[in-house]
């Protein structure tokens, strides 16, 4: 099992509270791992620690991807009804292969490819503010994919979605694992999704974490 993230003897504290002590786990590469645990146990805090480790070079955390190839899709985004930008322009904000005013040919190709993959083609010119919850999540995912990530961290992306939309999103995410060689970390509360789609579950409880292998599925 090739690891994407290796954590050894990690302690995490927030003001007035010790969250984790001597944390040891690995996140397997090219798998979908769900991070679960009670509210307030520190799921998002753990993920933010992982992200910060690129900068702080903490010896307890080893991530086998570069910072620019790691994309975090936050739980909340300030996109209101009046958010003016079209879906395609919003997704394109994630393109960083060059720094020109215009998009290069390969960037345009990548953008089209990502829009197609995330099934946003038909609505790409519509304002993002007017999109539904599921469409917004697909747009957030598409923006992250523009960075051609190796590690994709999704924070409760399905929290506000209905059952059908949730399943569609997860099927999409699983297909990325296969065609883009991505490792996905997915913070969720949803037992149904974990059963159906996760390869591993990283269960967080008071001070500790445990990696559990979920049912065998074809890759």
């Amino acid at each position: 099992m090739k690891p994407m993230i290796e954590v050894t003897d990690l302690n995490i504290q927030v003001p007035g509270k010790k969250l984790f002590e001597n944390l040891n786990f690995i996140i397997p590469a090219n798998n979908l791992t769900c991070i679960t645990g009670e509210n307030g146990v520190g799921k998002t805090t753990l993920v933010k620690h992982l992200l910060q480790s690129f900068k702080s070079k903490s010896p307890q955390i080893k991530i086998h991807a570069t910072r620019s190839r790691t994309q975090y899709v936050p739980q909340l985004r300030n996109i209101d009804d009046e958010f003016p930008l079209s879906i395609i322009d919003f997704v394109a904000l994630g393109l960083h292969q060059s720094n020109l005013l215009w998009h290069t040919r390969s960037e345009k190709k990548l953008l089209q490819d990502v829009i197609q993959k995330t099934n946003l083609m038909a609505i790409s010119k519509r304002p993002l503010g007017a999109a539904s919850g599921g469409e917004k999540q697909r747009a957030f995912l598409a923006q992250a994919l523009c960075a051609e990530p190796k590690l994709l961290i999704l924070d409760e992306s399905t929290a506000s979605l209905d059952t059908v939309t949730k399943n569609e999103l997860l099927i999409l995410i699983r297909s990325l694992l296969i065609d883009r060689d991505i490792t996905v970390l997915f913070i969720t509360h949803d037992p149904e999704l974990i059963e159906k789609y996760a390869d591993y579950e990283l269960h967080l409880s008071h001070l500790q974490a445990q990696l559990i292998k979920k049912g065998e599925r074809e890759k």
Partner: protein
Amino acid sequence: MLQFDFMRYAFIAGIFISLICGVMGTFVVARQTSFFTHTLSEIGFSGAAFGIFLGISPLLGMIIFTMSSALFIGISGDRLSRREASISLFSGLFIGLGILFLSLSSKQSSYATNILFGSIVGININNLYSLVALSILILLIIALLFRQLAYNSFDVTGSQYNQHLNLLTSIIFLGLLALTISVTSQIIGSLLIFVLLTIPASSAKYFTPSLWKMIFLSTSFSLGGVWIGLYLSYITNWPVTFFITTIEAIIYCLSLLYHRLQGNK
């Protein structure tokens, strides 16, 4: 009308003011920091008064004041600039300081009205040169950092996690905003920069969801307002500022109407 130097200067100044307000305005509206823009223009007024008081140029005074406030806000976080209390605090404090500097300096109060309400028809060739030079500098920095600024402005949360040097980008943006305000306020006045930095871009976003079209439209709305305003002011002898703000207000109302009609289709 164009046989007069001051009218030609005013029309040329309008082009550059509209270009920088068109681009910067699009970002300002996306970040929802319109009111901070207003505060910055009051800080600009205060800085100009300070410049007059010291005997240095008002533009330099403005740049010093707005830049240091932008740096302060950038470091202490954008959120501070959106808080109502800090907006009133800064506005009040700096207008007060501006009045103090003006009364301490021996210059007449016509200076104050010039800074506040501007005098696009009162600029000379040197004003025009400094306006053009600073505008080109601003546009150049925007061109170099366009993607970072766009990500930072349109997706505050996403860029915070996924953009390299995002905080620095925010600070550079505020610096550019400070510079824009300093540059434009000698022309249309520090109280009315607010109009050109926010209303054309707010109108443009109702007409198109495309980033480039938004920038193009808001630049056109600014330019249209300034040029038509200059012309109407020339033939009526009424203040140009009045015409510019009225035209921008009409454009905004039309954009709302357009948006409403589109929505009901």
